[in-house]
């Protein structure tokens, strides 16, 4: 069956460092992959989209990589700030349906 795995343990990181999150998947062939940010009590907020034929995407302090051979995406937040503290969701897309991981919490310590 399809599986999308994100680290269930929160990532605690010092302000200014780079946070790296992993999204692994099995039995799935996504056309593209999206990363969202979710704060408590709010809906997911779109951050980045990367397609199956793209290796890397950047937006300001965010970077996403996508390796369809390894079936893995990495999400990086460089120069992390306390305001980056949130849960980050990986979502794989096929035929307009998004399949989400459970999310990975990031806590940036000042």
């Amino acid at each position, binding site marked *: 069956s399809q599986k*999308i795995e994100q680290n269930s343990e929160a990532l605690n990181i010092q302000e200014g460092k780079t946070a790296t999150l992993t999204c692994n998947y099995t039995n799935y062939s996504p056309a*593209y992959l*999206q990363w*969202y940010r979710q704060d408590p*009590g*709010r*809906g*997911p*907020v*779109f951050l980045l*989209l990367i397609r199956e034929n793209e290796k890397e995407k950047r937006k300001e302090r965010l970077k996403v990589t996508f390796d369809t051979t390894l079936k893995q995406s990495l999400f990086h937040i460089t120069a992390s700030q306390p305001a980056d503290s949130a849960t980050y*969701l990986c*979502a794989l*897309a096929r*035929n*307009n*349906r*998004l*399949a*989400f*991981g*459970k*999310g990975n919490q990031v806590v940036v310590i000042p």
Partner: protein
Amino acid sequence: EAGVTQFPSHSVIEKGQTVTLRCDPISGHDNLYWYRRVMGKEIKFLLHFVKESKQDESGMPNNRFLAERTGGTYSTLKVQPAELEDSGVYFCASSHSDTQYFGPGTRLTVL
């Protein structure tokens, strides 16, 4: 530009009652989606509208759930009769192309 809005933000009902959730997508977005997050689980797809037509409703859990999008604008999701396991957060999303923009969700509690 206004984002996706959902109403109500919270709903508490008793088992067996009916609840109707509403979603207003971003203006001009033909695609509208419903998702649900049950406690402790990941967000799961329920269905997808293109304008007023149901494109994919394979994620709907059972026939107690009915979604409509009359006129291709706002959508409603009715749960009738509600069961305890229906509790969770219901998200609506809309898109013009690939990127889906989510609303704040409706937290449904069935007692």
